[in-house]
């Protein structure tokens, strides 16, 4: 029997705020007939507006949802409403044998597919001829990028100010054709740089690091971990199965120190930053197309005993949750002073010079005003400015006292994600 989820966990599955709100109105016992659950699933019939009745089934092991309503949201309010009721303990327990035929059939189908997964494209990727063709394409794409970069610098960056997005989009498209997807994404993101203050330096840094990547890719003598890093930055993906099978495994009590969602190219990305009690950092990425929920299994401010499998690389950061050994519980992560954090970041950068995001967990820092913005200052008097910050909730929780602050460190500064005070925590 799986434990009931907390209300917040259920609502985190909602594709948007409106669905979460609608779900709360559906979550009343009177709207349901035949609602029941067993260890693996919950089901019920929900009376909609008018005469329609929707059949809702939820596979709790996935979770996966099915509902006969016409909503395009997924999961729909009925599935979420059923889960909310279940989380309140308002759905009576039943036996698997009591499942109505429409639910039983769907669930059985899911089980069958899970046990017998369709043969995936792994076989195709292993085909040496295909791999060779792709390598040639990527090489050509990188040569193109290198020419483009040199051309930009030769002609001068000044003309890039207020350049149309097409300048970068055309190149990005060519890189997509060259099957260097990750690079294409980086190039497309460059379009925003010339619109920020201090852009010439930032743009030059980005161009320089891209050229460094091209260089690195051409070198035959790179150590294997660094080669993996370079290939990942270009767009060669490592299949999950391979990471789970062969990736470095680290079991620890991992604190989820912050979760940040971004959307790019009609794809939502969720970055969950983890920090182990042993001092190791990790990043768990999840992706979802619009209208689909992102993975909500890692909630900021909690700690989970788990084994992570790291993707290969020179400074391994991205990881998958291979195995959980317990339920998540609220916890305060271990932090370091500002100086120690910067030293730690420098060490990571020495291994992977392209590193552009790194989790920061600073302990014993107080908030301070600096140049009209918010900064943190630690006991040693070191100061680190914060970027893009709505300061009030952080200030409110801190009350001016030292806190543990977690954030995402980028070349542009520290973006706070959560803060812990002795009395309470705040997740931004």
């Amino acid at each position, binding site marked *: 029997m799986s434990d009931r989820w907390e209300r917040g966990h259920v609502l985190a599955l909602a594709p948007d*705020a409106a669905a979460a*709100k609608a779900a*709360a*109105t559906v979550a*009343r016992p*009177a*709207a349901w007939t035949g609602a029941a659950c067993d260890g693996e699933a919950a089901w019920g019939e929900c009376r909609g507006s008018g005469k329609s009745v929707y059949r809702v089934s939820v596979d709790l092991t996935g979770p996966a949802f099915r509902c006969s309503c016409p909503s395009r949201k997924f999961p729909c309010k009925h599935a979420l409403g059923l889960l909310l009721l279940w989380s309140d303990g308002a759905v009576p327990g039943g036996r698997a044998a009591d499942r109505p035929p429409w639910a039983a059939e769907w669930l059985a189908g899911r089980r069958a597919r899970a046990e017998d997964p369709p043969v995936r494209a792994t076989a195709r990727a292993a085909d040496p001829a295909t791999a060779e063709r792709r390598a040639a394409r990527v090489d050509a794409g990188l040569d193109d990028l290198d020419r483009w*970069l*040199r*051309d930009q*610098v*030769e*002609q*001068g*960056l*000044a003309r890039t100010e207020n350049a149309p997005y097409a300048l970068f989009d055309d190149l990005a498209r060519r890189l997509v054709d060259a099957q260097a997807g990750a690079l294409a994404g980086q190039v497309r993101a460059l379009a925003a740089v010339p619109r920020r203050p201090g852009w*010439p*330096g930032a743009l*030059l*840094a980005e*161009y*320089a*690091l891209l*050229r*460094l990547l091209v*260089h690195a890719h051409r070198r035959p003598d790179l150590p294997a971990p660094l080669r993996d890093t370079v290939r990942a930055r270009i767009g060669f993906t490592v299949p999950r199965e391979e990471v789970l099978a062969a990736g470095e495994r680290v079991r620890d009590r991992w604190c989820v120190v912050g979760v940040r969602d971004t959307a790019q190219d009609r794809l939502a990305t969720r970055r969950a930053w983890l920090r182990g009690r042993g001092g190791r950092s990790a990043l768990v990425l999840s992706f979802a197309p619009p209208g689909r929920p992102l993975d909500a299994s890692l909630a900021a401010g909690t700690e989970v005993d788990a084994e992570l499998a790291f993707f290969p690389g020179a400074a391994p950061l991205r990881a998958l949750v291979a195995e959980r050994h317990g339920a998540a519980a609220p916890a305060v992560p271990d932090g370091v002073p500002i*100086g120690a954090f*910067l030293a730690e970041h*420098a060490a990571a*950068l*020495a291994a992977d*010079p392209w590193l552009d995001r790194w989790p920061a967990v600073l302990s014993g820092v*107080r*908030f*301070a*005003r*600096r*140049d009209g913005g918010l*900064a943190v*200052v630690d006991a040693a*008097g*070191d*100061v*680190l*400015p914060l970027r893009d910050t709505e300061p*009030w*909730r952080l*200030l*409110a*929780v*801190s*009350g*001016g*006292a030292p806190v543990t602050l977690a954030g995402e460190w980028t*070349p542009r500064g520290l973006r706070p994600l959560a803060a812990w*005070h002795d*009395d*309470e*925590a*705040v997740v931004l």
Partner: protein
Amino acid sequence: MSAWEEHVGAALLGTARRPPPALPDAPDAGSDAAARLLDQAALLTVRRRAGLRPARGGADPVAPAPPEDLPPVPPAAAARLDRVLAGEGDGCLAEWLGLAADRGLRVPARVVPDLLEQGRGKDGWHLRAPIAAVAGRRGVWLALQNPRWAWLIASAADPGTDDPAVWTGGTAEQRVAYLARLRRADPAAARAALLDVWDRDRAVHRPEFLTPFGAGLSAADEEFLELALDDRTGSVRLAAANLLARLPESAYAARMAARARACVRAERRTVRRRAQTWLHVEPPAEHDEGMARDGVPFHPEGSFAPGRTPAPPRAWLREIVARTPPATWTGAFGLPPAEILALPVTDGAAAGRGADDLHLGLARAALRFHDAGWARALLTAGVLLDEPRVLGELVHELPAAERDDAAAGLVRWVDDARALTDGLLRTLPRPWSGALAATMTAKVAALLERPAGTANTALQALCASAAHGFDPALADRAADRFAEVPAAETAAARDRLAATLRFRHDMLKEFPP
């Protein structure tokens, strides 16, 4: 210029025009100038990023907040508040805040900014007092750092300091807060402090300085308030008159009573050979200076009700009676309130005319002087049926034990759904309990059971009112009662009502009793 800045400069201009600067420790990058610039820039970029040193100094740590003296709300209630702020429960924020404020609890610090934002603007003013009560000292501490939240400093009872220097040197809000605190502790000292600066202070502040004088009001304030009646600022005069009109023994009350008695006389008449006492109502013929000085304006507030604006003399009469201690009438006619209300009224021209003006004035006087005896008489005399709001307000003046029954009686009287929801239910005391709750349950259930379409708007208004009216302790039972109503067509309104009632019921349970 640093090496990095030189590189940026060259890149901006283009290596076609400016060769890349030399970087001694750079690896040899061949002959292509652009490539060399990029390679050197890569080296510098990683070096800069890895070598970043924290700044020292130049930052101004935020001063610590004072320790809280109120206990926090229980965790379950805090979680409920998050849901309310996210829009659940159909607008239960005011009630949640009230529950916390009544128990002397404070909210978790993380929601304080959201609450301060809620209290801003026109829609938030009614939340300000409870927010100020539950925001704790953290609230004032935060508001002092953000000008958008200055309203909290104004409504918080805590001016931040006891220092008398605030009174002469502080902001207007701080000075009002200081005066309010002083007034609660020592009314005479507050009066002396205000008198001290009265002639010198800017006119815009003076009406606000009179607001705290409602606390600890006594005959000792009369002299000062009479002085303020001659102030050059209209709002100061009105504020002073309103304060004086709460002192039944004052010279002001005597002047007003004399005016009122000149307008309302008892008359012996013989109708069909039976001697009767009539009340002859005669509005003042003209608006004299004395009336103006005592706060009876030419166009009294509220005399512009659309469609039933009384002529100015009738509005003056209402205002005069409303400012006259109701005990004047029991003394003058030698009758208890109920019998006075039963007397026939005439304006000399037609029987019955003038009764509404007289009774409305009496009702407002009962409210102003908190006269339970008159309130009870007015509620049972069958008068003021066109003024359901005033009747609802009068219920507040009754002793707590009588309120439910009186309110239930009013609700049974008012048949028109609109007058009920827009008028009476807005002013009746909440939460509904006892006889009132029972009557309202029956009323809502009856409306739910009616065939669809006949009273949909009325039903929705009534459900919305009922969702927040019932005592949350009874809400579960009311919700169960409504859930039984077999009403497919009205299901949406009913379900929403039941859901809100359950939400409020759960909300109450999360607070300590």
